[in-house]
């Protein structure tokens, strides 16, 4: 039987060879004449084809005067587009077997649909109408405002959403990414059509967007259908990424109010990890897995860990609920695990185990056309093409030393925030 070290080396070599062979076979990138970046991942094993179009028009691109405008626009895009009314859009999409939907993140807005493969061209035309030709009717503003207020109430039910808002506000107090994705109740109440039109004019351009097509299609067919649907989207503007740079240094971060908290609470901590080299995002994506290895079974079960990508930063969130002293101990254990990783770095065995778990999780996403399209487009949007290619192979040689450097730099700079909120029903 080979020694564990030898076995590990063999495993890592096997991973590397798979990755080297993978992306060039399966993912094709192109740029349409108007500047729209196109990614096609042909995978005929599925009966579906998925489209995901991302625009660099997330909440992080908003001006201070209109928080929530990116999300409001994403809603309004479905209020009528091209020659279709709002209900026709839904009817047309679902009559193809698809569901046309959208989402807003801090880094962008995305519009997506997946349909049985025969309907690719029509699905592209639908998507094109919504993104390129929304009518943004004045009479739809009030209805959508009310829907968003209902969505805000729903978000306020979520402990995780409230913690995330509080933590990003601490980490990025002077930047739009530090605000709530949906905006504030007051800003939603006063949003005007012209605010939306203005934001759209600034951000929705083909050179500011990425379209990914994944699933049962051939590359040439997908390229031709995409060119037909999106070719008329007029190129405009020069500088397309309107998001100001996130400050390189963290602000002064307050202490969490552990001593004064009473009753059941939810606590969260966040560590912002500055990204400066190609491949850093991929390296950092191992962190939740490495941390779980270092937490006890009870801590691991009680704590939720996740990453959120921003331009030039990745933010690691940890949340936990319970009595204040319990939460404090859990967050303390999380921080200790981070410090240990920053001090000693992960060993090869831990890295290999973390990479296995990450591969398993990515596999569950990549098995669907929708998951693959989203991954490719979102990665490209953040201009991490090289990383995106590697992720379609789901693995990269894990770089423990680089991870250690990033972590140490982040902790040294003080990019760590912690806070706590009441467990049920936050304030209005």
């Amino acid at each position: 039987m080979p020694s564990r070290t030898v076995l590990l080396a063999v495993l890592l070599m096997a991973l590397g060879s798979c990755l080297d062979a993978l992306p060039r076979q399966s993912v094709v990138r192109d740029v349409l004449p108007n500047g729209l970046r196109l990614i096609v991942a042909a995978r005929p094993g599925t009966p579906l084809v998925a489209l995901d179009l991302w625009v660099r028009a997330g909440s992080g691109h908003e001006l201070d005067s209109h928080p929530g405008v990116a999300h409001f626009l994403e809603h309004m895009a479905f209020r009528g587009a091209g020659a279709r009314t709002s209900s026709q859009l839904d009817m047309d999409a679902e009559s193809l077997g698809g569901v046309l939907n959208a989402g807003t993140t801090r880094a962008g807005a995305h519009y997506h649909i997946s349909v049985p493969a025969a309907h690719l061209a029509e699905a592209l035309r639908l998507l094109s109408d919504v993104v390129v030709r929304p009518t943004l009717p004045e009479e739809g503003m009030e209805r959508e405002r009310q829907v968003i207020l209902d969505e805000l109430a729903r978000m306020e039910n979520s402990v995780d959403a409230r913690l995330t808002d509080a933590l990003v506000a601490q980490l990025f107090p002077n930047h739009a990414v530090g605000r709530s994705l949906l905006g504030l109740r007051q800003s939603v109440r006063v949003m005007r059509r012209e605010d939306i039109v203005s934001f759209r004019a600034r951000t929705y351009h083909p050179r500011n967007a990425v379209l990914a097509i994944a699933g049962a299609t051939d590359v040439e067919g997908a390229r031709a259908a995409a060119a037909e649907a999106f070719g008329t989207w007029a190129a405009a503007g020069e500088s397309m990424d309107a998001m100001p740079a996130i400050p390189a240094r963290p602000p002064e971060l307050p202490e969490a109010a552990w001593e004064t908290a009473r009753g059941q609470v939810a606590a969260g901590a966040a560590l912002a990890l500055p990204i400066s080299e190609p491949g850093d995002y991929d390296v950092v994506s191992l962190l939740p897995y490495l941390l779980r290895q270092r937490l006890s079974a009870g801590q691991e079960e009680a704590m939720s860990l996740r990453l959120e990508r921003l331009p030039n930063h990745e933010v690691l969130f940890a949340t936990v609920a319970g009595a204040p002293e319990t939460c404090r101990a859990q967050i303390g254990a999380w921080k200790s695990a981070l410090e240990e990783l920053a001090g000693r770095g992960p060993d090869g065995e831990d890295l290999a185990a973390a990479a296995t778990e990450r591969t398993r999780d990515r596999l569950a996403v990549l098995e669907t056309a929708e998951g693959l399209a989203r991954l490719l487009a979102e990665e490209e949007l953040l201009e991490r093409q090289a990383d995106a290619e590697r992720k379609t192979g789901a693995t990269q040689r894990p770089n423990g030393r680089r991870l250690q450097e990033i972590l140490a730099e982040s902790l040294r700079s003080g990019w760590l925030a912690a806070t706590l909120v009441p467990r049920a029903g936050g304030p209005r």
Partner: protein
Amino acid sequence: MSGLVLLAAILPALLAQGHQEAVCEQFTLPNGSRVVVMEEPWNPLIAIGVVVAAGVGDEGIYGGIGAVAAHASLRGTKHLPAASVARDIARAGDSVVVGREPDCLTYTAVTTRSAFADATYALCQALMHPSLDAEAVAWARGRVVRALEREGADPLATATAAFRNAAFRSAPYGGSLYGTRESLARITAEVVDQWHQAHVTSDRTTFAICGAIDAATVREILTRQLAEFTRRSRGRFEGPKDPERLLEDLTVRRQRPIHTAIVGTGFPGPGVSHSDYPAFLVLATILGGGKASGLFQAFRDEVGIGYEVGAEYPGLLAASYLVGYLELDASKLDDGGRGAKTPQLRERVRSIFARASSVPPTDAELRRAKMYLRGSLLRRTERARDRALWAAWQVGVARAAPELDAFLKTVEQVSAQQVLEAARRYLEKGVDLLILPEARGVPSP
């Protein structure tokens, strides 16, 4: 082979796979377990779905025991300590997942051809000889308690639970899949062991294998690995014995302090084994499935009220229900739900259901609903693990054909008249639902 190599090895093939029709074969093993093999030679993955037809109707006073037993069964077996089971699972791709549905326990695993026998071995041992000791049961109970807490925190889950309870009262479907804190507290290791012996039996177990493996190989491996799995249940599984519906006129439940309210109406519906099922499924989709559905259009699109708007029609074996709902900012309901707005909303929900009972759907509505169902099912079964579980559930619970196409053809054949008849049969008497935040709550009747 470790999980690391295992998963890495399949990924290039996964992206390069080409589509062909799966070859489906069904057979019964000597011990009575049913097996479905969907041979997909192009697929680098092999997914294993196992359904054990042991439902909430089998739980009696030990509500939640099925979920506890399923989780505990992967914490070590009589032949293998917990660490060995964990190692076998890791070898098989580290992807074994257990689940609880109203009519069955589910187990899924994703692996490759070379590790297939390891994966089935771990699963077979967990089915046949779980150790179910006090430590394993305590651990599993902790997981189930957390699932119960999550369910209680979700307003929509609370709404459907309230309706289930109003509809089925003390009958098995009336409670949570995870029991109650009280029922979980009375579950001991001995009780779990007895329950497992009585209900996790060979004749209630269905395997579905989906991927690059042929039926003869599967038959040989499972026959060998399940040779000791000979215990049988006392009778054929029929779902809960008493699914009789005891509908009340109104249910108002208080919730933990949250910011949203749910207004809805619920009706009884046919179970999946009933001949009305396909027509009712199309009806439910016309009313509340998707953004072009009647409810979504009437509320979110035309009025601009409600973020989550739709209908829920779960696939239950013996009898089911349809709940139409909208979730909105609770502050919009005047006077804590006692003012005029609530009955107006409720009346509008009811009018959408009433219309379905008076006129047949248009051709466009019918076509949209069928295509929506088709697309939804294709998405739901896009991953091999989901296809396997679907096939196992179809055969083991619904006693229907395992092929997706067979189900889609049944849906395709539903006529507008059948939809109208289904609406008239089931939508006669509804139950109004109102879920309010605690601070604004009206005391429960």
